[in-house]
């Protein structure tokens, strides 16, 4: 299989409308978690989320026709794709039916907009209004929207494995590129906030009413977030030939099922150990090769110790010397977009030799014996990094990224 490079990154998060703003604020230890403004949270148990600023969704460079009735989630995806294509210096090329793949993690899609329709309809209201409110209910709608906005004609794949969706999407896209199925892939995902997920995670008592504290002794749960990431993947020789500037290599990925429980992790870490080992095996590497781990790190009571246990099983005593940080304290849990965002952050970490911090972490928990990089980003030479995602249904995935040498 050919070597695959990440040659462009687009990021839209609660910390910023673009990659560099997100990265710099993340490294400073800032958090995008604040009072949720997207809808009225009266009656909900919690009121915080990592919401993207509406100014990020304006998209003046995109044709109005491609944005007509576009959902919030699709706008996030289009914004990230526009930045990624420009970053890879492919924006001009991408406009005429290129057979490039769009491989996205799909989640809420246009559900936020559809909720207005559903609220009326479920209350017995009319069925004959506002067609556009439910056009983007299908979870592949944002994938379609991104392809439409940039007139891309290659295969489209929408992975819906909950919180690991866009991690799988990046791995799958890399495989499509490496195997020669496509020359270029736009990989990642987008997910927007909506009432369903806000109420649902609250009903599971998985949300911290205060800012989340991954791996911290005082953690009480996650904060939901929204955002998008798009990574441009292409074969190394193609990238080299056109003088592209790589961030990192995609060395491999692993994907497994816990086969354990719909929402609970296997506390022993054994199930997630298999995922990580599968990813390392796919990359042809060993645990000794890994210099940094971008954790799933949701800050729920159950996830973080189970995740730490998995790392302990894989990395043993060496884990003490490997930074393990979670960006969810800063960016919230962006669900189906989370894995793509974290892959993008991991690629930046590899390229720039910086381990990002875990916002919210202050007090170590003996149940989570990892080094979560408290405070601010840490200069750290990274040759190989792991980005892990563990989802509802036990759908687990991990990516291995490496430095381009």
């Amino acid at each position, binding site marked *: 299989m050919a070597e695959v490079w990440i040659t462009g990154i687009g990021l839209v998060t609660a910390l910023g409308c673009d990659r560099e703003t997100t990265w710099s604020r993340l490294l400073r230890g800032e958090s995008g978690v604040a009072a949720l403004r997207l809808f009225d949270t009266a009656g909900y148990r919690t009121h915080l989320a990592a919401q993207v600023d509406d100014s990020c969704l304006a998209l003046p460079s995109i044709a109005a026709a491609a944005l007509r009735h576009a959902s919030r989630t699709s706008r996030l995806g289009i914004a990230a794709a526009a930045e990624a294509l420009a970053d890879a210096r492919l924006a001009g090329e991408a406009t005429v039916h290129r057979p490039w793949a769009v491989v996205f993690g799909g989640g809420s899609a246009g559900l936020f907009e559809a909720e207005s329709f559903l609220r009326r309809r479920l209350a017995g209201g009319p069925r004959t209004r506002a067609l556009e409110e439910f056009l983007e209910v299908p979870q*592949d709608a944002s994938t*379609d929207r991104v392809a439409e906005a940039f007139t891309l004609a290659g295969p489209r794949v929408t992975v819906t494995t909950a919180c690991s969706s866009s991690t799988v999407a990046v791995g799958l896209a890399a495989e499509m590129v490496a195997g020669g199925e496509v020359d270029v892939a736009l990989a990642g995902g987008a997910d927007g906030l909506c009432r*369903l997920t806000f109420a*649902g995670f609250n009903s599971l008592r998985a949300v911290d009413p205060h800012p989340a504290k991954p791996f911290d002794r005082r953690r009480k749960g996650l904060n939901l977030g929204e955002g998008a990431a798009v990574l441009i993947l292409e074969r190394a020789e193609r990238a080299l030939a056109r003088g592209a500037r790589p961030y990192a290599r995609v060395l491999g990925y692993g994907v*497994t099922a816990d086969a354990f429980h*719909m929402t609970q992790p296997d506390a022993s870490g054994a199930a997630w150990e298999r995922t990580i080992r599968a990813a390392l095996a*796919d990359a042809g590497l060993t645990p000794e090769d890994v210099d940094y781990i971008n954790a799933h790190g949701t800050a729920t009571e159950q996830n973080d110790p189970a995740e730490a246990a998995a790392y302990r099983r894989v990395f043993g005593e060496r884990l003490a010397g490997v930074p393990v940080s979670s960006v969810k304290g800063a960016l919230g849990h962006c669900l189906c977009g989370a894995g793509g965002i974290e892959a993008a952050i991991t690629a930046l970490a590899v390229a720039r030799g910086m381990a990002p911090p875990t916002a919210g972490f202050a007090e170590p928990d003996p149940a989570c014996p990892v080094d979560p990089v408290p405070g601010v980003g840490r200069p750290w030479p990274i040759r190989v990094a792991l980005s892990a995602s563990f989802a509802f249904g036990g759908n687990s995935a991990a990516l291995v990224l490496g430095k381009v040498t």
Partner: protein
Amino acid sequence: MFICAAGAVTAAGTGIPALASALAQPDWQPTLGLERPDGPPLPVAVCRDFSTQGVLPPMVARRLDRPARLLAVAAREALGAVGASLPWPRDEVGVTAGTGNAGTEALVEVLKAVFLASPEEAPPMQFPSTVANAPASQLAILEKFGGPNLTFAEKQAGGLRAMVEAGRLLRRQRAAAVLACGVDEAQWLNAEAYHRLRFTRRSASGPGAILGEGAVVLLLSLSPGDAPLARLAGWGAAASPTATHLYPSSGDSLVRAIMLALEHAGATAGDIDLLLSLYSGAPRPARLEAEALAATLGRQRPAVLAITDRLGEGAFSSALRALVAVLALGGTPIAWPAPPHLAALGFPDLSRPPRTALVTALAGGGSAVAAVLTAP
């Protein structure tokens, strides 16, 4: 790459024998009609007599929502055909699923609580079923399958995408066997949306699709096993940029998907002796299909079989077309005719067992997937 076993729950009944029985009757038609609170029933072919009795213990069935139950029952049929003990370690058995609407009913129940009672009334037991990967995940939990577990959304092409991705997982040796699945539930809000988009038929004899409900499982492995049903010889996919709820203006993406699938299979248009038409009753995709076949098959006129206009459209239906292709390749007698738009172009009905079948799907938004299946 072999299809070693299969299972299905469709509007024709539970199990492949029920499906085969319907396929043998030229005039078989489903009983249509999905009730909604305040309007006439919607044109959906529902799995009316579906039950988990005798297949899943009641305590297990109770914790699954309808799509997960449909899928679990179809999977049990496929697994039962392989034998009491699987020839692969369960940690190396994966699941790929395509779905268009799994989780909708659970979503409606959670939002009903949020909107009509209070956000605090959102039912925690149902929330996990709102995610589309719930049926495939529940299947893995039920059967202790630790291999990759991936769900795909690609509207009408979702089921075929699941089969393609099962092939990819096997090719990369990420699993020893994969259950490639399609699953959809009949849910009135979902069906009403398609009705409002004028995709579904407005009268019994008028144009338009019917929607379907069901689950299909095709068990794929690199090893043929004792009695393989068919081979997955190749696949291809492409897309035409278009609005997410519309079909594209041309059949270009379908043409490219078919050409890629033939190339991947090492086949030519002349090798195809059965085409599973994507005809659902909706005129637009039928026109695009005819256009694509003219571009890819030229003057070749393989036998054509349409099933989606009777068993219903959805993500699961493209997997169901693959299953019916597998049955035909195995010699199952099928008496259903070619669809009218292709019969008019000279495509004949299926009259003898084929050797090589082409299965296609075209989704709203322009995504197209094609696969070539051959007799084992």
